[in-house]
């Protein structure tokens, strides 16, 4: 399999990239790590006359800590995010999503922006982006906009990015004290795998009342996009963080929130059952971490 012919652009600044995107529009694809795009080009699943590589724009691969949030550049790689001390400390579910994507070789190339723009329902970092209430930062020539991650995905492989826009990164609010999160992915083997089901959960509890005061649960591979489990979240809110309420929330996620399909990776029935198991387990670990936090 050979790569098809295309024009290759390597802008040195965001402005230059936006100018190219404005000029080429739908006739150009953005190249970040290339771990999906180059494969799709080889397999002729994607056709384009132009590739705009973002790899030489330094600002896009930064991870910076602000007062109450962090910025992760769209071109930050899985390996880079995983190595970041602030992420290891405060965004454990995201770190674990990054650590479980593909294998070492892929993680050295694949970027968080690419993972989001590829918009696979099974994407490894996406449930974590959802539970940390991330904001996607989009730019077009002369214009910027911010999209809450919950509104970012519109279908399998589809997001709300416009043809002239580039995703420059994400802003993630730093989780409060007494909160914790966890991510679990389930596949057929332990590495180089595409998930059958993946779940991330976040919860914050009030140490005084011992009640859950915030929770976000995200499910992957069980709908057209990664989704929030709204009914499960509602079921857990205000409850005591304990096995019974985690189980009740998990049952809600399994029965009400997910809409899986059969495909060659697994049946809808199994996926649904696993949503229950993984939701329960991620909540339990999230709470353990919240207590330790």
């Amino acid at each position, binding site marked *: 399999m050979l790569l098809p012919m295309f024009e290759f652009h390597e802008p040195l600044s965001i402005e230059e990239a936006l100018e190219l995107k404005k000029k080429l529009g739908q006739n150009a694809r953005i190249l970040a790590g290339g771990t999906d795009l180059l494969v799709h080009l080889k397999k002729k699943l994607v056709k384009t006359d132009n590739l705009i590589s973002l790899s030489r724009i330094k600002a896009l691969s930064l991870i910076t800590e602000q007062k109450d949030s962090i910025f992760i550049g769209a071109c930050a790689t899985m390996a880079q995010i995983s190595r970041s001390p602030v992420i290891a400390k405060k965004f454990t579910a995201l770190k674990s999503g990054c650590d479980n994507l593909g294998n070492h070789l892929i993680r050295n190339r694949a970027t968080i922006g690419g993972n989001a723009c590829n918009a696979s329902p099974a994407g490894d970092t996406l449930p974590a982006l959802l539970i940390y209430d991330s904001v996607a930062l989009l730019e077009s020539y002369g214009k910027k906009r911010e999209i809450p991650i919950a509104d970012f995905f519109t279908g399998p492989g589809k997001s709300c990015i416009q043809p002239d826009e580039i995703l420059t990164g994400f802003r993630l609010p730093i989780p409060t004290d007494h909160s914790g999160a966890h991510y679990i992915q*389930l596949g057929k083997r332990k590495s180089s795998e595409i998930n059958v089901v993946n779940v991330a959960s976040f919860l914050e509890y009030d140490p005084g009342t011992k009640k859950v005061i915030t929770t976000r649960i995200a499910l992957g591979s069980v709908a057209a996009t990664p989704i929030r489990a709204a009914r499960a979240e509602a079921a857990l809110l205000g409850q005591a963080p304990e096995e019974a309420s985690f189980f009740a929330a998990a049952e809600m996620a399994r029965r009400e929130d997910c809409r899986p399909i059969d495909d060659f990776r697994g049946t809808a029935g199994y996926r649904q059952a696993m949503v229950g198991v993984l939701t329960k387990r991620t909540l339990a670990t999230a709470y353990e971490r919240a207590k330790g936090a």
Partner: protein
Amino acid sequence: MKEFDIISTRAHRIDTPDKATGQAVFTDDITRPGMLYGALLQSPHAHARILSIDTSKAKALAGVKSVITHEQAGHIKYGVSPARYDETVFAIDKVRYIGDEIAAVAAVTLEIALAAVELIEVEYEILPAVFTLEEALKEGAPQLHETSPGNLCAEVHQEFGDVAAALKECDIIKTSTMKNKRQDGAFIEMQGCIAEFDNRGVLTLVSSTQVPHYVQRTVAMVLGMDVGMVRVKKPYVGAGFGIKAAANPMELACCILARETRKPVKMNFTRKQVFMYARARHQFSHTITTGAKKDGTLMAIKHECWLDGGAYTSFGIATVYYTGSLLGGPYKIANMSYDGYRVYNNKPTCGAQRGHGAVIARALFEQQVDMIAEEIGMDPMELRIKNMMDTGDTTCNDLNMSSFGMSECIEAVRKGSDWDKKKGNMPTGKGIGMACGFFVSGAGYPIYRSDTYHGTVIVKLTEDGGTALVYTASAEIGQGSDTAFAMIAAEALGIPLDHVRLASGDTDMGVDLGAYSSRQTLMTGHATKDAADHAKAQVLEVLAEQLSVPLKELDIKNGFITFAGDTPDFSALRTRYIKEHRGWIDNPDSEHLTFKEASRIAFLEKGSIVGTGKYKPHNLGGKFKGAAVGTSPAYGCSAQVAEVTVDMETGQVTIDSITDAHDCGKAINLTSVEGQMEGSVSMGIGEAMHEEVIFNDKGQVLNADLAEYKIVTSMDMPRIKAIVVESDEPNGPYGAKEVGEGAIMPTIPAILNAVYNAAGVRINELPLTPERVYFAIQDYKDRMAK
């Protein structure tokens, strides 16, 4: 036991420096002056009649040098077994699977060749297709081959003893079924080749193959050439596992393109084409009934198997026989019947893969042995030992176990895994299981009926006397055979390993049937020892005469001549040697006469010292139809213990450890033996846990790459404790026999028995995906609840 100097050590492999530095040359590393690139047109339809082929636009494309179809390639049928030749290089009137070859192009670049393939216009009449056993066997089903009504490629019916009568005497009878999934060998190097004619009309084909000899014969037959005008060379090869054990249509197309263009032509399979060509392990559907007495004596096996064969026969006729013949051992079972059927359908063709034909039958039967042990309350190891064949025993289908360390293997894994402490004492979700298996050390007969030697080897001593050159046509494909034969030659000659140079994988060097059926260590090993002994004898004869010492008192050890009696005065020989080396500063001055001096003197007396060696097995097997398949001069055997953790909520199985003991006869190279054991376990785990070629309803492979075809990763591999059990095989060189394939036999059933121990469920379909295990556990819980 005899003491050895070279063999049975952990000598470094002779190919390691090349491979570690990237200097090892594989087929695709080779470029020839003026070389063209070839590409194949393969059918996009699973079953279609070809109405017309128009190559004119492809031929008109600038840079295209040749476009060939069946018109140029001819209609000669080939395949693996001559009785079952059912393939032509290119489809003539119809295509039978997605990937069936229709035409090929040679052009000055690969891009042009691929573009030209797109320009070939084929008019098809789409025919209804069948993709499963059930569809293919249905009355009125579309037929693949006119010569095989009912899409039945082959059937085998055998009975040894009296199964029905024996089952009547049994106290316990277990019947169960098992199904695996079609596999891919997933070797790292995809098939590739370069064909080239010289000005005298000699064709040289360089190919990534396991079997230069069979490829040479097939190419000669299909192209209508003398075998002597065809040379097949195998550079370094990135594994084969059975899939590369026959000529493939790309090799043949490449030779024809070279003939048409008179230019070197290179062709490669992409990974997708590897999956389309297939020829790996079949999907087997087994039903086995095993009967036993309540004291644990195994009495009878009734075995039925259906093989999902794909579009052509390939190795299938051998596979369907192997499936039956390699089941009864390693146990003493007097009654065994087998009904095997191989069925054609419109998917790529299945063939041979590590543990040819026998792996899934073993996986089912070894579970039944455990079921019987459980029912009578006997330890599974005890039951196996009770029924185990002894050295010298012959199975009911006439396979003779001339050495058999099976019970020793069981004891080794019992101790190595701490079985006695763990079995029966593990918490829910943790399990331990074991299984046994055995395999041939080389097929007893060649694939084509012949009295040929299975291997010939030449050992030539260099004129200076210092170095032995070993020439063998055998195939080093990563398993370490070159190193093994260099070690055998060094041992036989009595010289250090680094004084041996070895060249292999070239049909000009002799006959060798190649790397399949775990044959080379025993067979090529014999021929190597024979050739080295011959060369050594010639040196010692000259020496005996020169020194007036009886021949039988002379020997060579560690590069020095030894004398059984007093050391004679050899100063005249040394002076003669040294006189020829005036100015040299490293002339021998040791107390002992060196091999180098002796061998130089032998050259001066006789000219080139060339030892020739050969091997073919003695007459093996019974007289019944199919008796040849499964015969071997020796059988390797092994036992494994698997320990697993089953996540009872998700169905995920983690293999915590494998303890593996294998009787390989005398281990030529201990490290290589362990490498084969670990490789076998890895392949067995892959098949047990996640590997399956998946098709859509059009007969197209959905996971034709190594991202979606899931072999084990390093993260999935457990710790393996590999224990080499040595026996002394009378039919093996220095007592050696196989390890390459037998070691996979117990892996799958050991895992299945461990999963049963952990979770209480028997799973009759592979792979053990979390989903399949989860539903089995749910089903078990439902049944328990009722």
